[in-house]
């Protein structure tokens, strides 16, 4: 087991290097520091001097890969690649355009992101499984048919609509919850409720439908027929056998996204004014703060790879038939 995890970790390193090289190519070779400077300074202020000054301010005045002027190991280290891309491996992200340390920002903003994303994930999972089980229990009746149609309708509605309609009706018309904002501790509860509610509702359509197909796949199997043949009630079959076995693909599918919850949701956080990583990213994209976008790309990939490793481990934990060598 330990050897397997170690091997998976080693396998993750080339992938992270690939991500790093790709972002380096996107941000520094296809899109040169001159281009970035020109875009940030705006058409009016572009002079060679201003571009040079901008590059010095951001530390982009070094050569890309090889510094011929320096000597010794500085030939490799005093370059954009080493200072800005390779440094990310030790989570050294540098400063954003607002002068703040990106690493610090990430640490303080993870909490609020998680405060929204985790409840949405957990409650959503429970609600979706409940609806899916109900549809499976009433399968091939009109209740099931219309349940599926309702799911298709729900998933055809834009996520933006759920947020806008939720904010408008619940906060503006009926004044039930604050429209946006965030606070720590128990005070924060009233701010969290609306985004969590909307996040759960927005996910029901696709989630419940997907879990329904998983459960239906289980229902056709032999062990279910055996369980019925020994006289178990339908409810018992559903909970003891189908739910338990159906949970394997559901849980392992959920483990992949677990680490990514730290990243938060771009749209939800920006609509509800939550100071998390999602709104940080969206602000950075809109302000064209390349350093922050680059850091978030790396962080996102890192968390995704962690998720992949956790998935493999959880497979062997949830399903004894899967043995890792």
């Amino acid at each position: 087991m330990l050897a397997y995890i170690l091997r998976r970790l080693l396998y993750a390193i080339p992938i992270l290097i690939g991500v790093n090289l790709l972002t380096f190519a996107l941000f520094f070779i296809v899109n040169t520091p001159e281009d970035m400077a020109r875009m940030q300074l705006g058409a009016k202020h572009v002079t060679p001097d201003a571009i040079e000054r901008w590059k010095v301010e951001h530390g982009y005045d070094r050569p890309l890969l090889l510094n011929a002027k320096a000597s010794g190991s500085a030939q490799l280290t005093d370059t954009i690649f080493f200072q800005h891309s390779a440094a990310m491996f030790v989570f050294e992200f540098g400063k954003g355009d607002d002068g703040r340390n990106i690493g610090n920002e990430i640490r303080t903003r993870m909490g609020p992101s998680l405060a929204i994303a985790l409840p949405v994930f957990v409650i959503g999972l429970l609600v979706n499984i409940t609806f899916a089980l109900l549809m499976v229990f009433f399968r091939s009746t009109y209740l099931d048919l219309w349940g599926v149609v309702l799911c298709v309708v729900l998933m055809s509605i834009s996520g933006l609509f759920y947020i806008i309609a939720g904010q408008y009706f619940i906060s503006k018309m009926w004044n039930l919850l604050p429209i946006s904002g965030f606070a720590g501790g128990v005070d924060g509860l009233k701010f969290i409720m609306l985004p969590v509610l909307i996040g759960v509702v927005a996910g029901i359509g696709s989630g419940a439908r997907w879990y329904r197909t998983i459960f239906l796949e289980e229902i056709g199997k032999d062990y279910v027929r055996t369980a019925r043949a020994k006289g178990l009630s339908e409810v018992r079959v559903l909970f003891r056998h189908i739910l338990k076995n159906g949970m394997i693909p559901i849980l392992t599918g959920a483990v992949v996204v677990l680490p990514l919850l730290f990243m938060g949701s771009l749209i939800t956080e920006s609509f509800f004014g939550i100071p998390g990583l999602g709104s940080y990213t969206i602000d950075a994209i809109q302000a064209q703060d390349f350093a922050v976008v680059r850091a978030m790309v790396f962080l996102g990939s890192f968390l995704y790879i962690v998720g992949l490793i956790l998935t493999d481990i959880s497979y062997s934990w949830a399903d004894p038939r899967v043995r890792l060598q």
Partner: protein
Amino acid sequence: MNSAWSSFDFVLLWTDALIFALVAGVLVLVFFIRRQEHLRAPWRAVAQRPMAIGAALVLSVFVVIGLLDSLHYREKMPDSPADAPHYSVDVLSVFDALVGDLRTQQEKTYSEPMAMQLYAKEFVQRDGVAVREYPRLKFGGSHLRHASEREPDITRRSLIGLAQGLAVSLLLFGLLAAWQARRAQNSFGEWFMLWGEGRLDWPGRTVAVIVMLLLMMGGLLIHLAAAYHVFGTDKVGQDVLYISLKSIRTGLVIGTLTTLVTLPLAIGLGIAAGYFRGWIDDVIQYVYTVLNSIPGVLLIAAAVLIVQVYVESNPDLFDTAARRADIRLLALCLIMGVTSWTGLARLLRGESLKLRTLDYVEAARAFGVSHSRIISRHIFPNVFHLVLIAIVLDFSGLVLAEAVLSYVGVGVDPSMHSWGNMINGSRLELAREPVVWWQLGAAFTFMFTLVLAANLFADGVRDAFDPRQGGRR
């Protein structure tokens, strides 16, 4: 004839060219499928599902509008010399020409749906005195003399529109019945009985009802839009119905061209990885794990920023605003395509891994059939259903993604009509007092209709093509 043609300059945007190439490709495919019984059978199964066929009819309305909106031209300036004509900088489409006044009837600012007055009070000079009142619209309801005439006029126009739609649909139905009855050598009454009891070999009742509803809605819109702004006007006074209709093309382009980009990558790399295995498999798996691990929105954002820089630093390559917006739309499709081929590729890899061990493939290899021939004759036809299901399933997700990307600021060009831009532009209108809801409402309604139709159609296609789902429902 010659002079009429020379007063236009046909404009072929990049996305137009690709759309027509796509249409040609689909027509070739249809021609091919019609001659192969085993390919026709699942499509016939799709056509027998009421839900799928109804959705397909709704989709076809969107597609027709989108195609008409893809034939672009520029008008000649009226006073330009004949030997060296100047053309207007506005790129129009056949759709613009068809809807005519809808595009040009611009009000001053917001007005409610079907209104005859502006939405906000203004100072108006009346008999030398400044009065604060709701000014009349320039076009919406301008034929009315008094506000009390508005409701009867709307009712009259609605009824005429509905009646005309009904009449056309009944006429069509009669023609269809006559043709079908003649082909089946039934009497008219017999066919009608079969139709009424739902015993035809196609879902006749659903088709009839959907076509009738669509035609009646069309009649209603045509008659009302001739005199009113059916969905109101936006901040600069543009007709919201016109903007929503123009956005259809953007949605369709993103939904279809993106898939067009993903297909060669997903099919080529997915099958190659599964069929050849070994180091080819390792390399391809590595590439798609790397791409997959980067959060999609961020990769798209990075690439869109880069395209923006390119367009800004090469302004001479794009002579009109339409061309600039078009290249950004194309770039968006390319980027979304490059980031979203991984799922299908993984699926095709798994399937090819299974197929390559089957007896008939091994036999083909033993006979010395070349790799390219095995892949094209034995592997590809057996994974084609997966490709098709992926195309129709992805479409609706891509249409929805456009709105989110436009909100983030990395979607289509802000000057291009799209539902995402409409939603983005009307975010602050809900906070305004009194609320402006119609632009948001129109964008969501149109988007919902298209996505729902696409989802229902996709369900039908998946049920018909996926052997695992066969018979279960």
